[in-house]
């Protein structure tokens, strides 16, 4: 199975059914998480996705957040929806594989949103350096998704950044 192919219509990405379902699910979860930002102050994943613009100055940081957070959240939710929509509208579905063709704008939205999902997962897992090792089934599962998303981002980036 060739993961990535450059076509005249854009980058063609091939996933298996399980990968497509997982990706759609985590993208949906990211959109839900961001959509509930108002009621979740102190959530480490949201703090990483929507960080302070100023260090050591809480007044400026708060003002910056006041003026920018809504737009930033909307941007990130829209990018996550690009993934969900593309995977649910997939046209070519044969032999257990899912193919999507991403034009330049969509490919960039995917790259950004995959990165956001990795940031959220890393915050949930408590990844603070490169020596992280998961413990237990749940952590191992989420860490496997985290690593896989990194690989997916890498091949997608390679196709976009030519």
């Amino acid at each position: 199975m060739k993961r990535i192919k450059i076509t005249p219509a854009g980058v063609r990405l091939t996933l298996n059914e399980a990968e497509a379902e997982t990706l759609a699910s985590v993208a949906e979860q990211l959109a839900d998480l961001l959509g509930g930002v108002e009621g979740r102050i102190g959530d480490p994943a949201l703090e990483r996705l929507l960080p302070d613009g100023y260090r050591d100055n809480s007044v400026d940081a708060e003002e910056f957040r006041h003026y920018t957070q809504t737009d930033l959240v909307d941007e990130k939710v829209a990018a996550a929806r690009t993934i969900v929509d593309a995977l649910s509208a997939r046209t070519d579905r044969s032999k257990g594989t899912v193919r999507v063709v991403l034009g330049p704008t969509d490919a960039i939205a995917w790259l950004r949103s995959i990165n956001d999902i990795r940031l959220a997962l890393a915050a949930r897992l408590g990844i603070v350096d490169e020596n992280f090792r998961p413990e237990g089934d749940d952590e191992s599962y989420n860490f496997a998704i985290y690593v896989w998303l990194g690989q997916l981002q890498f091949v997608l980036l390679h196709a976009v950044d030519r």
Partner: protein
Amino acid sequence: MTDTLERTNEETDLRTVVELDRPWITLVWNDPVNEMTYVTWVFKTYFGFSPAEARKRMLQVHTEGKAVVATGPREEMERHVYAMHGYGLWATLQKDDE
């Protein structure tokens, strides 16, 4: 007496001018999640850095913990920080303290 006061005022004014002229900077901070290739791509795509320059700044973030990626007026730096947050990079702005 008048002379002294006038001179003091001039000095104060000069200090104010220097303070206003001090530029703002956009800093990108290291984090354990963002991949080097992604950060390099963001620097190239958004700031228009050459591949070599983008890689240099990325490595600076990685090895020194942070790098200055832009210098200029405060409003412009706020736009850059916002854009970096859009890409998922950990960025802040501050007055250049050097």
